[in-house]
């Protein structure tokens, strides 16, 4: 009798890529719920629209490449990219903004580089940056958080939201507004305390910015779930949040008029938590070793702060992540772990002595 010839190990853990991706999707739920609660249906619509577009694009490209469509769609990676992009885009953005961004993410940033596992840049952030540069008005129009809506006004309902997104209806007055980071960018001449007193975005908030603090708490919760499930290690997020906090402490400047904002405000505003736990933890485009990921995260934290404080954009997660993606292979070369039985860590570029 002849038996099957298979190489060891024969046992496998039950974990697979699809399950990892599904868990990531689940972990975005707290963030999505917070976004929907604070900013209306817009993010939800973004997310669905992006997902459908992503799956179609992925299927089309995989088919063109002559691969098994069901096998490659089964890994859920396209949906993850779409969901992350959808969550990052402003709620109630026109449908074509979402579609263009998703197509760019999936087709150009991911599939043209070889598909899952081969993209040097975070696809969602590539899509985001393309949109930000191409359509700055649509990309910087944010819905006002719940607490800041004019008296009696509410966020548009689901049907109305769909009309705004797809038919180009204008949302009611007072529905859109600035973000905490925008406010700080344009508040020169005021002490931090004065900003907090005068701006409803802050005086209606608990500690960081109305609405935004909830969204960030949501993503923090999701990140903690993933961390506890060992989907990624703490190094990347800790590096990023640590560096961001450190930078904002160093340049806090006692809340003077030139202060770019408090550490709490930076940690819980904009895309900080989402970036730390869902964007820079994309393993494909990040550094590989734990030490490398710590440095990679810290680099993003520093870049985010630098661009927020002194750059032209109110938030900077996408740019910071892409710049760090560039640096990842370089970081990898110098951050090999020390192998058992070796006294020193080595460099990846080391050549064998002849």
């Amino acid at each position, binding site marked *: 009798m002849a038996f099957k010839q298979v190489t060891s190990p024969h046992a496998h853990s039950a974990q697979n890529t699809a399950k990892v991706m599904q868990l990531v999707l689940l972990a975005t739920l707290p963030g999505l719920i917070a976004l929907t609660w604070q900013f209306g249906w817009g993010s939800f619509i973004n997310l669905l629209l992006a997902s459908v577009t992503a799956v179609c694009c992925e299927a089309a490209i995989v088919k063109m490449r002559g691969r098994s469509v069901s096998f490659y769609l089964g890994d859920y990676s396209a949906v993850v990219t779409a969901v992350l992009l959808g969550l990052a885009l402003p709620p109630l953005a026109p449908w074509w903004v979402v579609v263009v961004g998703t197509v760019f993410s999936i087709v150009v940033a991911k599939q043209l580089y070889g598909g899952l596992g081969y993209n040097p840049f975070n696809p969602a952030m590539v899509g985001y940056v393309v949109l930000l540069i191409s359509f700055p008005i649509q990309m910087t129009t944010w819905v006002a958080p719940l607490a800041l809506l004019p008296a009696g006004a509410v966020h548009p309902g689901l049907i109305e939201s769909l009309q705004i997104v797809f038919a180009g209806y204008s949302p009611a007055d007072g529905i859109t507004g600035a973000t905490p980071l925008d406010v700080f960018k344009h508040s020169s001449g005021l002490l931090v305390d004065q900003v907090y007193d005068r701006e409803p975005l802050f005086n209606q908030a608990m500690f960081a910015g109305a609405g935004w603090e909830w969204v960030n708490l949501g993503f923090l919760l999701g990140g903690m779930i993933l961390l506890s499930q060992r989907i990624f290690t703490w190094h990347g997020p800790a590096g990023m949040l640590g560096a961001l906090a450190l930078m904002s402490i160093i340049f806090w400047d006692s809340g003077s008029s030139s202060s770019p904002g408090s550490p709490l405000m930076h940690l819980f505003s904009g895309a900080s938590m989402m970036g730390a736990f869902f964007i820079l933890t994309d393993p494909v485009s990040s550094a590989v070793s734990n030490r490398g990921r710590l440095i990679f995260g810290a680099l993003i934290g520093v870049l985010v702060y630098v661009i927020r404080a002194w750059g032209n954009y109110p938030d900077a997660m996408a740019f910071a992540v892409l710049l760090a993606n560039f640096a990842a292979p370089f970081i990898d070369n110098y951050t090999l772990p020390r192998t058992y039985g*070796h006294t020193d860590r080595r460099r990846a570029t080391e050549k064998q002595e002849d």
Partner: protein
Amino acid sequence: MTKTWVTPGGVHPPENKHQSLTQPIGHLPIPAKLVIPLSQHIGAPASPCVEIGQQVLKGQVIAEATGVVSIPMHAPSSGTISAIEHRPIAHPSGMLAPCIEITTDGADTWIEHQGISDYEHIAPRKLIEMVGNAGISGMGGAGFPAAVKLNPGRQRPIHTLIINATECEPYITADDSAIRERAGEIIEGIKILSAILDHPHNILIGIEDNKPEAIAALAPHVEGTGISVVDFPTKYPSGGEKQLIYILTGKELPSGKLPADLGMVCINIGTTYAIKRAVINGEPLISRVTTVTGDAVATPRNYDTLIGTPVSHLLEHNQFNEQAGGRVVMGGPMMGFTLPSADVPIVKTTNCILAPSYAEIPDDEPAQPCIRCGMCAEACPASLLPQQLFWYAQAQDHDRLEAHNLFDCIECGACSYVCPSNIPLVQYYRAAKGEIRHARDEKVKSDHARERFEFHQARIEEAEREKEAKRAARREAAQQAKASPMAANDSTAGSSAADIIAAAQARAAAKQVSPQEQRAKLERTIAATEQRLQVAEEKLAEAVASQSDKQAVFSAAVENTKQKLEQSKSKLAELAE
């Protein structure tokens, strides 16, 4: 409790050990035929010392060790030698290897054998010899000859003896059950090892905490012996030699070194039992405990199995259901290899035959792309970056692979186990290691060829330079001749023919040497040739004496030299006339 250290990485696959522990170690009927491979260990294969048709008794030597790193083979039961030929053996490649087949007579008659009881008073050298003669090689996995391991040399005194009872692979319970039933003899074996190694300070039995019965069985026997049983949390692969050394001592075995370099010896617990049987009972290693388990067999349990028993014999006696599973693994589910067929024999390193059902171990799913999630790096016990190794193995980037310490990979399979993309990572590393070794061999060869070529070039250039120098000398001579008055007269003609003649005459004049000089030169030549002849004859005599294959070369050289000598002599004679 003794302090233990925690290794990085590791995985916790389902243990599946209880299935084979419900019954005590069993015995099987003696198979009709036993097939003993001549190479069951690391080192030189044994060389047969029996003939086909010869009657052998149980325990009789049937193949002798060849060299230091080798072990002899013994007949596991009495019978007749029925074949000495290549047979399929248990090897990942499914290759054939020389084996001795014994057709058993069922009588199981022992050869006369005798052990010693007062090993404390026997010289360690003698004890090592007994271990070596009993054909004992490491029974944990690699199969390194025990006698070699126990002889680390005087410059490396051993202060720590580590007995590996970890058995971290899922499913396998051979060591566990052996400890439960044979703890006394195992401890006796450890005492013999201690005597051989001149009583090391520390004697540690390393065992995972998932074997409480075995730990309890050892406890009464180690009391007052100075041997400590150290248990530590179960984690695969704690039983790897490097990992166990770290867990028990907190020391890392430097890359490329042996435990003896740290003053340690690491021995599998099954081997200690074999050593006890060899020294006290005088029995060679002819059987071992092997686990037969997996859902495709009806009665998973351990057997005291004769070396050479065909796997099919074990499977048949356990109602193996071929339809239930697709593979039969020798070893455990993490590092074991699949058998091409059930005709291969059990060898000294076979601790387990695993016949899993499809439900237990399904067929591999197709590999998905690596997303560098890093779960493999978290699982790696050697702190490597498996995802990077995989990347560079695909790219065949040997420099990067070596910089990432590919050769420190112990192939434990933890990375492949956790890989969510089902990538057979270990197989990539095995292939890459093979490629690099091959490339190194090739490099040695090509370096050799290059040196030879460069030497050849240098020699040709040297010869060319000499020739050029001679030509230059001749040209010089010719010009001088031309400049002489005779040549000057002729030069009025200005014809090239005249030039040529003049040049020829000049050369002749230059060549013209007095007879005395010629004689002197010839005599020198003769003297030199005679000397060469003498040397050549000596070399020929040496070559004949040592049966070298260069005989023909040297005899031709002698002939040549003789001819030259005669030529020179006859020229001299001509000159004298």
